[in-house]
């Protein structure tokens, strides 16, 4: 399977000044040394708690913000080295669906204007052809033609998310970044939208990066999962490995405490002490060592662990993880 997306050593620091004097510049280290690949047809889940950097990674991939260091390759093209016209062409191949269906659609634009916008900018479609394309897109997401004349506020959250998906698919992208697409929706609506997302992937051979803090949803939809903590990737593996055989102590704790809506599948919980440290003051060595139930070695405080391949595409960044022979 060909590689659609590749990140190498991506870093993003946001400058912040603590005092008025601006003498000491501090940085929010949102993303630190993130590298991964996504292959065609996959759904890769990017999970972590708030502040871990997952949304920032999503924004960098879409070239909405520039990284402080590192590179992003979309089908072998260095995204941040592209010039205006080349970038425009590449942008057609990527789509995005955001979390909030209430703020991601312009309230002053009709659905027709919203869905037509990418088509008008990037294609020569006009008149009847344009209309047909829009109707087709709406049909794909389960909405009727008469929606075109209406405005976002006339639709429910679930319907608006469908409109956002239709807009994201307008230019036949190969790759979609879905940033918490169902987190703002009720359970029964979430099911409809998730089913749609899965169906569309099969129909249109799409590749997804699914960013979410809701681990149950990610477990359901993703083939592989990447776990982030305080700006770094701590573990990457298949969904089965991550949920049923996690190795990194953070992943172990995280997967042990997710509320599972099934009384037969309750797990033994691992509770982490304290709170997540501030990304302005990242702990030395392994950033997780301050809360890690297994951190005992001096090395955990001193050295930053690197992602190691433990075999079968299971990567862990932990000094205590043993490499399977």
């Amino acid at each position, binding site marked *: 399977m060909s590689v659609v997306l590749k990140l190498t050593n991506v870093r993003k620091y946001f400058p912040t000044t603590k005092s008025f004097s601006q003498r000491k510049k501090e940085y929010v280290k949102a993303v630190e040394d993130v590298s991964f690949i996504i292959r065609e047809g996959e759904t890769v889940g990017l999970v972590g708690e708030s502040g871990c950097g997952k949304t920032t990674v999503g924004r960098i991939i879409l070239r909405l913000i520039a990284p402080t260091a590192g590179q992003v390759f979309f089908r072998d093209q260095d995204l941040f080295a592209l010039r205006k016209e080349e970038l425009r062409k590449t942008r057609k191949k990527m789509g995005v669906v955001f979390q909030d269906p209430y703020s991601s659609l312009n309230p002053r634009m009709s659905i027709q204007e919203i869905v037509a916008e990418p088509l008008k900018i990037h294609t020569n479609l006009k008149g009847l052809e344009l209309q047909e394309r829009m109707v087709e897109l709406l049909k794909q997401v389960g909405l009727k033609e008469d929606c075109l004349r209406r405005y976002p506020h006339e639709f429910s959250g679930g319907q608006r998310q469908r409109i956002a998906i239709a807009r994201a698919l307008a230019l036949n992208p190969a790759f979609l970044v879905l940033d918490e697409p169902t987190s703002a929706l009720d359970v029964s609506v979430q099911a409809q939208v998730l089913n749609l997302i899965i169906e569309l992937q099969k129909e249109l051979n799409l590749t997804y990066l699914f960013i979410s803090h809701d681990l149950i949803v990610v477990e359901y939809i993703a083939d592989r999962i990447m776990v982030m903590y305080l700006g770094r990737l701590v573990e990457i593996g298949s969904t089965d490995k991550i949920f049923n055989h996690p190795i990194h102590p953070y992943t172990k704790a995280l997967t042990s405490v997710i*509320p*599972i809506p099934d*009384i037969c599948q309750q797990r033994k919980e691992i509770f982490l002490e304290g709170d997540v440290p501030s990304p302005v003051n990242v702990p030395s060595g392994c950033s997780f060592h301050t809360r890690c139930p297994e951190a005992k070695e001096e090395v955990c405080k001193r050295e930053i662990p690197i992602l190691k391949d433990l075999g079968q595409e299971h990567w862990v960044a932990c000094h205590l993880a043993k490499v399977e022979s």
Partner: protein
Amino acid sequence: MKEMLLEIKELETHFFTYEGVVKALNKLDLTIYKGETLGLVGETGCGKSVTALSILRLVPAPPGKIVGGKVFFEGENLLEKGEKEMRKIRGSKISMIFQNPTSSLNPVFTVGNQVTIVTRTHQKGSKREAQKKATEMFELVRLPDPERTLWKYPHELSGGMQQRIMIAMALSCEPSLLIADEPTTALDVTIQAQVLNLIKRLKEETKTSILLITHNLGIVAKMCDRVVVMYAGEAVEEASLNKIFEAPKHPYTMGLLGAIPKLNQKGKLEVIKGSVCSLIDPPQGCRFYPRCSSFTEICQKEKPARVKIEEDHFVSCHLYNF
């Protein structure tokens, strides 16, 4: 033999708005027994929070108003009590914690001050005694360095710590009932786990009954003894935890359980067609019938009665009206 602590009978709460009367609660029936954790689940707009506010008579009025029903607490109807009597109950006999601790704590007072206000309002004692009690409560909720934390302001503390303070405040007068309205929705998963574990442990220690309001069935599975499922202002099913998950009877409950992804299970998620009815102009009979795949003629005309189908299992559905 279970002892009843709170009994809600045919509660009706309406909101009078420009667009019409929102019938938020439509003859709701609900019972909480002593020593149990009752989960109140449902999706947005089903009336879970309004139920909590109605119990404590905190429904904003206007535009809200409790227009009918009874709420028996320890044998007395709360809806017949005056405001002065209710103030003695709120915070001491029935306490509540809310979803967002940041907006529930006053930013201009120290957290110690906010906790001592509760004890000094409801119990006799000096300022020093109240502070001692506050420190004890902070220890109970496992706040680091309790004595120093008394002097901190809310913004100096993390979300998880703020929620612990809310819990400390709520339990400081040893209430018989704690209402927790989505207490961990605003918190990260690992912090949520800490707070839920704390609530569970405290419940065992203090024997407080808990009304846990949530839309997350995973939290219900972890925390609750019994569950009430709400839909559009009504209780549609009430049963023990096991029965709700293993043998749900109401079509909505079944649909809800089918719609959520469960671990290690693939396969298409079940969809409940359509969307929630209008609460201003709800259907005449059962409020769920427009979305129900099992509906019959009578569902359109009559609201189904609450029927006991077995021990610890009640349903409001015409399919079970024998």
